[in-house]
C-alpha cells in the first residue's frame, strides 16, 4: 500500500468515525428534544431545578493531564488558548505554581477557594457541587452548594450598580428568545477561574448564556472580557446537567466549617481545641 493510499484510508476511517459520531450525537439530541424544557407562566423556559457541571473545569479550564487528585480533562475554552497579555501569562504561571504550595500551618494555597472564599464567576457554576435555580418573573435566583454562595439576578431591566466590587459580581439578566443572558460586572480581582491559576482583574465583564437544549440539559456559554488581563474577549462553553435522582435537592457544603480548625487551631489554647 502506498503511503498516499494508507493516508487516504486512514482519513476515510476518520471521516466515517466522525460521521458515525455525528449521527449518534444527532440521534441523542433528537431523543432529548422529545422532552423540551417546561415553560414558566410567562412563556419563558423554566430553568427551575438542581443543576451541575460534569467537566473538570474546576481544576483547569484548559486541556490537562491527570495529576495527584486531579482528573485529566479536556478544556472548556473555545480554541483552547486563553489570550493573556504577556505580563498576565507570567502571573498565571506564578499562580499555578503557588496553587500547589500549601501553607505549612493552614494548608491553604494561593487559590482563593482553598480559603473557602466565594468562588466568583463563572467558577461557581462548574465547581463539582450542584446549584439550584429558582425562576421568578422579575429575578432568577442561583444558590450554590459550595460555601453557601448565591446570587439574585434581577431580570426586570434594572442596570448594574456602579463602583461596587463583589466576589460574585453584579448580575443582571434578560431573555433572548429561550436563552437566559446574564451580564455580570462589578467584580473584585480576588477570584480565579480554576485551581490552575487562571485569573482576571476587577475589570472582568462576563456575558453568560444559559440555553436549554432539552428538559435536562443547559448549554452554558460564557464570554470573558477583561482588557486589563487579556488581549481580546474569549469564550468557554460546557453543558450543565439536571440532577435527576429522586428527591435531589440542594444541600450544604459549608467549606469554612472544615477549614476553621486548620486556620485557627494554632492560635488557640490547646485546652479549648476541638469540639
Amino acid at each position, binding site marked *: 500500500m502506498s503511503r498516499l493510499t494508507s493516508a487516504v484510508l486512514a482519513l476515510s476511517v476518520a471521516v466515517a468515525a466522525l460521521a458515525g459520531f455525528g449521527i449518534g450525537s444527532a440521534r441523542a439530541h433528537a431523543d432529548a428534544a422529545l422532552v423540551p424544557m417546561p415553560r414558566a407562566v410567562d412563556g419563558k423556559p423554566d430553568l427551575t431545578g438542581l443543576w451541575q457541571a460534569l467537566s473538570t473545569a474546576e481544576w483547569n479550564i484548559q486541556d490537562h493531564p491527570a495529576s495527584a487528585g486531579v482528573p485529566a480533562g479536556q478544556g472548556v475554552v473555545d480554541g483552547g488558548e486563553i489570550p493573556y497579555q504577556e505580563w498576565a501569562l507570567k502571573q498565571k504561571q506564578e499562580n499555578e505554581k503557588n496553587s500547589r504550595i500549601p501553607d505549612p500551618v493552614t494548608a491553604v494555597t494561593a487559590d482563593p477557594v482553598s480559603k473557602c*472564599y466565594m468562588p466568583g464567576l463563572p467558577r461557581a457554576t462548574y465547581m463539582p457541587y450542584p446549584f439550584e435555580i429558582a425562576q421568578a418573573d422579575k429575578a432568577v435566583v442561583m444558590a450554590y452548594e459550595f460555601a453557601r454562595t448565591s446570587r439574585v439576578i434581577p431580570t426586570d431591566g434594572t442596570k448594574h450598580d456602579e463602583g461596587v466590587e463583589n466576589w460574585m459580581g453584579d448580575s443582571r439578566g434578560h431573555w433572548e428568545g429561550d436563552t437566559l443572558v446574564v451580564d455580570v460586572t462589578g467584580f473584585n480581582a480576588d477570584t480565579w477561574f480554576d485551581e490552575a491559576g487562571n485569573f482576571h482583574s476587577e475589570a472582568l465583564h462576563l456575558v453568560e448564556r444559559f440555553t436549554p437544549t432539552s428538559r435536562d440539559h443547559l448549554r452554558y456559554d460564557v464570554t470573558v472580557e477583561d482588557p486589563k488581563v487579556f488581549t481580546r474577549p474569549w469564550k468557554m462553553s460546557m453543558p450543565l446537567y439536571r440532577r435527576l435522582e429522586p428527591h435531589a435537592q440542594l444541600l450544604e457544603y459549608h467549606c469554612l466549617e472544615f477549614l476553621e480548625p486548620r486556620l485557627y487551631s494554632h492560635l488557640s489554647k490547646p485546652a479549648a481545641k476541638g469540639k
Partner: protein
Amino acid sequence: MKWRMSVVAVVAVSATLCFQMSRSSVTLLAAQSNAAATLATGVVPTSPDPGYKLPRTAWGHPDLQGMWENSEEIGIPIEKPRGEVRKLVTQDDAFDEADKRGGPTGAGPRWWYETKPFNGRTYQLIDPPDGRLPPLTPWATEKQAEARKNRGGPADSYLSMGVATRCLTRGIPGSMVPGYFMYNAGYRFIQTPTQVIIQYEMIHDVRIIPLDGRPHPGPNIRTWFGDARGHWEGNTLVVETTNLNDSTPLLGSGLSGPGTNEQTRVIERFTRITDGLIRFEATIDNPKVFTKPWTIAIPLKRDDSYQIFEYACHEGNKGVVTVLSGAREEEKTEKAARSGRPGSTR
C-alpha cells in the same frame, strides 16, 4: 388584650375618616397606624386591619415580594428583662445595652452601624406569656453548666467565639432576628408558584423554600441552615425547618446555651398585616433543650429603598485571627515579664 382591641378600633376609625382619600393614602395611613401600635404597645399586630386588601400574586398566593427590614429591632432582647424594663428609643440606648452585655466580639466603632429610630419594644417572646423562656431540661442544664465550666476566656480559642463572629451563620430563625448585630437587617422576598425565596443580607444567605410538600431528607443530613418546607395556611406562609446540626445557635448570639439538635423544629410564620408590615413569628420546638416550645414575634417593615449588598463576611474577617493572635502575644509578653522578674507577684 383590652388595649390590643382598642388599637384595632383606632385604626378602623382612622381608615373610616380617610375614606374620601385615595386608596394609597388610606393604605399608607393604615400602615402608619399599625406601626404606631407597634411602637406604643410593643405588640406586633396579629391580623390585618379590617378592609385591608391583601395583594396577591398572579397565581393567588399572598404577595410578600420585595424588600423588608427590621433594624428597629436591633438590641431588643428575646426575653422580658428582669427588674426595670428599659425601652430602647435611640441608637445610643441600644449601644449602651450592647456594651453592658459585653457586645459582640470584634464589634467596630459606633459609626459602623445602621441608624434607625427604634420601635420602643422591650422584648420579643410572646409565648410563654410571662415573657421568660421555659425552663431548660435536665440534660440542657447539665450541658450548659459544663459549657460554662469549659468556656475559658473569650480569646482562648476560636471555639470560644460565636458562630456569627466566625462568619458561619446566624442560624434559623436567628438570621431574621437582629439581636445585637447592628447592621444588615434586610431581607428580600421572591415568590414563584412552587417556592418562596428569602435573601438575607447578613452573611449573604439565601433560602429557596419549596412549597410542594416534598419530604425532608434523611435524619443523617444535618446542616447549619436546616431543611425548610413551606406551605400557606390561609394568608400565612408557614415554614417548617428541621435537619439542623448540633452547632447552630437558635438566635444568633442572642441566646446562650445549647442550641439546635436532631430534635429541633423551627416553625416560622409570615403574615402580611399591611402594605408596610409583615408579622414574623417563630416557634422553637426543641424538646431536648426546653421543657416547652416557645414563640417570638417581630415586625418586618417594608423598605423599597433598602438595597442588599454582598456581605463577604468570612472573606473580610480579620477579627478571629487578630483577636486570637493578639491574646497569644499578650500571654507571651506576660510570661516573659514574669520570668524576667522572679518574685514578681504578677
